[in-house]
C-alpha cells in the first residue's frame, strides 16, 4: 500500500506539474485574449477547427459502414483488415506523413496521375485533412466496431420480425444502442485529429493559413511569441479536457451492460 501511494503521488506530480505550469504561465501573461486574437493564432484556430471537423465527417462517412462490416462479417479478408486497421495508431505519425508523400506526392505512386488531372495534394489544406484522417480514423473505427459488436445480432433479427427493414433497423436500433461507443470514438478521433503534428508537417508542411494547424502554430510561435504559443496550448488543453468529459458522460449510459 505505501508503495502504491508513493508511486501514485510521484505520477500525479509528474503529470500534473507541467499542466499546472502551463496554466500558471498562461495566466501570468499580460493579455491571454490578446495573444489569441493575433493573426497567427486566429488562422491556426480556424484552420484546426475546419480541418478537424471535415476529417471527422470523412471518418464517419467512411468509417461507420466499415466498422459495421467489421463487427458483423466473418470473412477472412475482413479479419485480416480488422487487425491491420489499427496500424496507424502504432505507426509514428512522421512515418505516416512520409508514406502519404510517397503515395500522393509529386513523385509519388499516384502523384503524377493526380497532377495530370490537375490535382495537387501535398502542402494543401486537403493534405492536412488527409493526414488527420489517416492517423485518427482507427480510433473511431475501433470504437464504432466495438459498439456494433455489443449489439447482439438477435436484436436485429427480432427487429426485422417486427416488420422493420434492415436499413431502418440500423437507424432505430443498432445505431442508438452503439451510440455511446460511437460518440466516445468520435471524441477520441477528434482529439487525435486536432493534435495531429508529425504527419501534417511532413505531408502538408507549415504554411500559415493553409496548413498551419494549432500544434504547428505553437511550434512556430515558440520562436517569436511565447504568449501566443501558451494561449494556443491552453486552448488545446481545454479541448482535451472537454473530450475527457464527453467520454465520461457517454460511456456511462444506464443500459450499458444490459444488452
Amino acid at each position, binding site marked *: 500500500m505505501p508503495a502504491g501511494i508513493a508511486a501514485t503521488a510521484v505520477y500525479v506530480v509528474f503529470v500534473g506539474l507541467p499542466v499546472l505550469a502551463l496554466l500558471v504561465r498562461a495566466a501570468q501573461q499580460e493579455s491571454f485574449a490578446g495573444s489569441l486574437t493575433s493573426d497567427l493564432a486566429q488562422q491556426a484556430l480556424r484552420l484546426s477547427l475546419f480541418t478537424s471537423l471535415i476529417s471527422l465527417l470523412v471518418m464517419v462517412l467512411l468509417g461507420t459502414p466499415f466498422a459495421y462490416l467489421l463487427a458483423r462479417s466473418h470473412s477472412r479478408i475482413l479479419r485480416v483488415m480488422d487487425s491491420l486497421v489499427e496500424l496507424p495508431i502504432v505507426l509514428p505519425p512522421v512515418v505516416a506523413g512520409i508514406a502519404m508523400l510517397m503515395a500522393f506526392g509529386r513523385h509519388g505512386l499516384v502523384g503524377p496521375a493526380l497532377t495530370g488531372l490537375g490535382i495537387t495534394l501535398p502542402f494543401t489544406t486537403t493534405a492536412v485533412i488527409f493526414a488527420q484522417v489517416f492517423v485518427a480514423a482507427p480510433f473511431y473505427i475501433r470504437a464504432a466496431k466495438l459498439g456494433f459488436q455489443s449489439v*447482439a445480432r438477435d*436484436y436485429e*433479427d427480432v427487429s426485422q*420480425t417486427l416488420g422493420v*427493414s434492415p436499413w431502418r433497423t440500423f437507424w*432505430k436500433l443498432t445505431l*442508438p444502442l452503439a451510440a455511446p461507443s460511437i460518440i466516445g470514438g468520435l471524441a477520441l478521433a477528434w482529439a487525435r485529429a486536432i493534435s495531429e503534428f508529425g504527419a501534417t508537417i511532413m505531408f502538408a508542411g507549415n504554411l500559415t493559413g493553409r496548413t498551419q494547424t494549432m500544434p504547428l502554430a505553437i511550434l512556430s510561435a515558440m520562436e517569436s511569441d511565447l504568449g501566443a504559443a501558451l494561449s494556443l496550448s491552453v486552448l488545446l488543453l481545454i479541448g482535451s479536457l472537454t473530450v475527457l468529459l464527453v467520454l465520461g458522460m457517454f460511456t456511462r449510459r*444506464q*443500459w450499458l451492460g444490459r444488452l
Partner: protein
Amino acid sequence: MTRGWVRCQLGEFSLETEWEAAPGQVLILFGPSGAGKTTTLRAIAGLVRPLQGHIEVGGQVVYDSQSRSWVPPHRRRVGYLTQQVNLFPHLSVIGNLRYGLAKRGLASRSATGYPLPMERLLQNLQLEGLEERRVWELSGGQQQRVALARALATDPQVLLLDEPFSSLDAELRRALRDEVRSILSRANIPVILVTHDRDEALAMGDVIQVIDRGRTLSRGEPLQVLGQPGQARVARLVGVENILAMRVASRHPQDGTMVCVSREGPTGPEAGLHLEVPLSDLAEGQPVTVGIRASDIILAGEKLVSSSARNQIRGKVVGVELRPPGYEVTLDCAGIQFHCHITGTSLSEMKVAAGLDLWAVFKASSCFLVKEDPVLIVQQ
C-alpha cells in the same frame, strides 16, 4: 395457417423438415438441442435461407425455391420470441411495444392515449402501469410478457416461440404458460412452439412433432406421442424411463395380452423377468421392445394379494434420486433396473432406502411396445 417444408445445410448439419399449423393451433417442435428445431423456426421467419423449400405464412408464399421467390423477414408478418427476451434496452416498455408500429395508422385511441389494440394487449398481458418503465427494471416474467406483447402488437400471421419460458423458474413458467395458452387461443393464429420440456409440450400443444438430427421422427397428439411413443428412438428422446429388450414367451389372445421375457440378465426356464404386455401380432420367440413410464409404476411393500394389475415384480432398491417434484427410485429386478417415480411423502412413509425389498406393480396396459427403428443403427 402456416405450412411448408425446407432443406437447410448449416456446415455439417443438414435439416429436412415440414410442418403445418392451422389458426388457433399450437404445433410443438420437440427434440433435443441441435435437432434442428430452432433452424426450422428461423427459416420460417426468414432469418435463415434454406437450400430448398416452400414456406407459406398466412396463406402467402414467402419462400419458394422453384419459383425463386423470397420475402425478406420484415415483410413476413411473423412474431418471433426466444428464450433471450431481447427487449430493446434504450426504449421503455411502451417504446418496445410500439417499435414495429411506427408506420401503421394509430387511428382509434383510448382514454389513456394508446391505440385500442395496444390497450387490450397491455390489459391481457397484465402490463398496465408498467408502460413507462425501463425494461431492465422488470422481473423475468414481466420481460417475457412484454416480449410477447411486442410480438403480438404487429399483428403477426404466425407466432414462433423458441423455448420462450426456459429461462424462468418452474412456477413462473407454469403460470405464464397457462396465461399464454389462453391469449394464443384468442389471437387465433397458428403457433409453433419449440421445446424440449415434456410438461410444456403437454400443456401447450395441440399437435407435436418430434425432431432429431434434422429429421422428423413422429407427429401426432402430444399425449399419445409423449405418453406411449411407438418408436424406440422417440421413446428415448421423450424420456421414457424404462425401455426393456424382451422376447415374446407366450400369447394370450383371450386377455388381449402376451407374456414377454427379458433378453438381458440371467437365462433359463424360470429365470429372467416376465412381463404381461398388450398383445401384438408378433409370434412367440420374436424380439420386442417394451416401454413403461416411471410414473405408471406403483411401489408396494408387499405383494398385493388380490389385484387387477397384471405385473408384480420383486426387486431391491439400488438408488433413490431427487427428481422434482418427487423422487426416482431404481429397483433391481432379476438383474434389470426399473425406474419408478414416487412422491416425497411416499418415500418417507415407506422408508425407502437402498437395500429395501419392494414390489413394482403396474398394469399390462401401462406397458407399450416400441418399434426399434432400423434408422437407429446407422453409424455416425
